[in-house]
């Protein structure tokens, strides 16, 4: 950068040079200063709903409607949460959401990496057909399958259990696509060397490949967990009563059932749904972003 410094100039113009230099320095350190204004505006637009939710959920109903609203509650209260967890079975719904999301994530990590490895590195008859078949369903929307799935699950007598929420999501084409792409980039020599050393085929997958796919597994795990945590249509269709509701179902029915007047309780419910994933996101945001950007998919 020093090469850009102009040669010493006569004192008459030195203040002008100073100005140019200062402008250059600002540009180097800040970029285009005017851009901060629209970007800050956009940022405020993005986070205001969350701030409003967080602060209102700790206010009494009267304080929520106070004009202008306080950012920090003047009389903070947990009454909304107390009522939420006593009038609705929110503890149960929270547990259901966690159980379903964990089971679905575990299933996808295992089953998708197994098939992904077979498709990426093993020779077998019908490989192309299997791959084409799985990929052909990548774009099939949940809207197309939910009616027959409901009939199927109902006939398996699973509508009254969490299994009905878990089973249809245990193995997804997207996971296979992601794992196959990642495993294809691992060197074949690793596998050949293991074979020469007498390692059995399944052991190669378990002991050599799986540990190497950790970055892809992390990405798939995050995406799958979030997808399951936020999933709404299927749990809404299949859950029969409150004991199988997940958080979004419980919250949506609470918000539409009664007349929509109790802001405090609903916002407290939204906090319970949003806060866990938001905290995890803020802690691991770098991995999140790297994973999502490399897959190029949600």
């Amino acid at each position: 950068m020093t090469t850009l410094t102009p040669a010493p100039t006569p004192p008459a113009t030195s203040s002008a040079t100073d100005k140019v230099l200062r402008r250059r320095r600002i540009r180097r350190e800040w970029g285009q200063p005017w851009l901060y204004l629209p970007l800050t505006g956009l940022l405020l637009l993005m986070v205001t709903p969350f701030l409003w939710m967080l602060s209102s959920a700790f206010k009494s109903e009267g304080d929520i409607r106070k004009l202008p609203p306080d950012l920090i509650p003047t009389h903070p209260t947990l009454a909304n949460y107390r009522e939420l967890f006593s009038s609705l079975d929110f503890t149960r719904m929270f547990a259901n959401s966690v159980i379903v999301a964990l089971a679905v994530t575990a299933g996808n990590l295992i089953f998708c990496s197994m098939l992904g490895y077979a498709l990426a590195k093993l020779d077998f008859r019908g490989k192309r057909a299997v791959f084409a078949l799985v990929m052909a369903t990548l774009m099939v929307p949940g809207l197309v399958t939910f009616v027959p799935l409901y009939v199927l699950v109902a006939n398996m007598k699973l509508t009254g259990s969490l299994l009905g929420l878990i089973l249809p999501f245990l193995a997804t084409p997207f996971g296979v696509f992601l794992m196959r792409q990642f495993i294809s980039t691992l060197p074949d020599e690793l596998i050949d060397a293991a074979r020469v050393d007498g390692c059995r085929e399944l052991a190669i997958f378990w002991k050599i490949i799986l540990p190497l796919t950790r970055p892809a597994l992390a990405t798939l795990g995050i995406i799958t967990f979030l997808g399951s945590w936020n999933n709404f249509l299927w749990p809404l269709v299949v859950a029969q009563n409150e004991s199988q509701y997940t958080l979004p179902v419980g919250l949506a029915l609470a918000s539409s059932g009664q007349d929509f007047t109790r802001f405090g309780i609903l916002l407290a419910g939204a906090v319970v749904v949003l806060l866990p994933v938001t905290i995890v996101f803020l802690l691991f945001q770098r991995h999140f972003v790297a994973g999502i950007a490399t897959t190029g998919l949600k």
Partner: protein
Amino acid sequence: MPPSTITGQGTQEREAAGPRPAARRRTSVLRRSAQGRQARAAWVLAAPFLALFLAFMLLPVVWSLLMSLTDTQSADLRTPLNVSFIGFDNYVRLFEDPQFFTALRNTAVFVLVALPLTLAAGLAAAVALNSGIQRFRAVFRVGLYLPVITSIVAVAVVWKTLLEPHAGLVNTVLAWFGIDGPAWLADTRFALPVMILMAVWRNLGTVMIIMLAGLQSVPQSLMEAAELDGAGAWQRFWRVTFPLLRPALLLTAVTTGIGYLQFFDEPFVMTDGGPLDSTLSATLYAYKQFGNGNYDVASAAGYVVFVLIIALTVLQFRVLRDKD
């Protein structure tokens, strides 16, 4: 070099012509058993996924199509095979139902407005973050991405309180400027646009993150060469950067479009399709038909949306793919 000597096949053939049949037999047996082991392992690894996939994906996809050609009702739940084949009657019924047309129109408006807006906003944010500013990049990146990870249901509940006509934050802020805000979600003119803006708000972060990754992979030398050739910033972006971003943009456009065509959570929570069906989406229509026990019509509606998804994807590939 003749091609046969390169491939393993050729080596085997040459060995076959050689004078040591016993050794050859041994290697080929070894090889065949190794291949058999590999194939067996592959099927063992594939089996759990394929079993679940057949039962919960392939079967429903086919069944749904068949169901849309029958008169399946909720009464047939326990005897799903005991139904009559009625051809395309359900599709005829759908397209004679003005409510389905309304649902399709709302879905089309939602997708055709929200999708370009989301892509443009996300791309603009990415460019601003990548080359416009130097400080606080991480803050902006995390803040703009935050809504993406959230549950639409929870976010819709929050927005519903924000948009409440009397005590909501939006109308309070508007009142400071002397504007009398409408009852957003109870007004046929505003309910759908509000959901469109909410979708852009929630999803622009996805586009931004993927575009940021793309922008960072544009080689600096290319930009410098363009600059030397006298290309201005505007030209550099549209002639050099944008073509390099196009494949990633296409992928985001396709996945976002598939999501938008199925929008359901927002109207379910915020308006239940109202007022006067102005926010009734195709998915909400199918869900309501399902709720009324019309499994056949719900399946047919699902397939119509499926066809639209394929059409939109093909269209996007045409518009956004590299033009050679």
